[in-house]
């Protein structure tokens, strides 16, 4: 899910596409997707930043996996940031991304 320009291409691959325009509607559809039949939710990074609270809520479940991907407006680094957070949580300090 994400803004329309970023996501419509994925439809051709057979992925269900949810285009959202404002964050309120986004939160609503995200909750719906999360409790639905999906195993993976790809979400544009800009939207992921807005919905961080919602995503954190379901992050300890096995599915769905919420994966931020760069949208058409580019990359804001939230995907790498999440990875960093996981490393910090597990190791205690960041030992992989400090280069």
């Amino acid at each position, binding site marked *: 899910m994400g803004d329309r320009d970023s996501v419509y291409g994925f439809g*051709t*691959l057979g992925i269900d596409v949810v285009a959202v325009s404002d964050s309120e509607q986004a939160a609503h559809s995200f909750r719906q997707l999360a409790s639905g039949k999906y195993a993976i939710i*790809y979400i544009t990074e800009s939207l992921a930043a807005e919905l961080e609270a919602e995503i954190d809520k379901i992050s300890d479940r*096995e599915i769905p*996996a919420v*994966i931020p*991907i760069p949208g058409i407006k580019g*990359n804001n680094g939230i995907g790498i940031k999440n990875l960093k957070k996981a490393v910090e*949580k*597990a190791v205690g300090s960041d030992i992989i991304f400090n280069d």
Partner: protein
Amino acid sequence: MASKTVNPTRMELTRLKKKLVTAIRGHKLLKDKRDELMRQFLDMVRENKTLREEVEQSIAQANRAFALARAMMSDEALNAALLAPKQEISIELESKNIMSVNIPVFHTKTRTPDENDIYSYGFAFTSADLDEAVKSLSEILPRLLLLAEREKSCQLLAEEIEKTRRRVNALEHVVIPETQESIRYITMKLDENERSTQIRLMKVKDMMLKQAHGY
């Protein structure tokens, strides 16, 4: 300390000794678990990192192609072209167990086996850029799915490592020292009781001897 509240009895002592043995054993096991989890996690996180960088780059590329296609075609034509996807993907979920952490493994199935089915339009009214864009997206797809699997696994593993580490620390710094302290307290108390009984008996013996023989 907790030793103030324990009963200095032999029964309690036996119980505590058993508890200590269990705690030490549990501590060792959990420590091993943590180390192994950490090893797996670090491997996975490195893989995850490179995968993510790759995917992010290719998506950016695909997005550029889409932007071009969008510029070349009218909105309506583009919508019409992408409106009805031919392909459909479904995911079968399986979970794999790594050190008692269930991590997901995704198996994907496409509805039609032909990979060309990603083009949901005839080529007559669309620009070549669109073909390019769709093709580049479809090339990312397997890695995108792998990324999802890895990333979720990393998250779950991190969670588990944190939990395990907390348990190891609790055992190492709280449970085991406290039990040892209690055991020491009871042993000392019991020894002290023993000594006082001994002395009491000696005293009684002295008194009895005095009475009987007038020493």
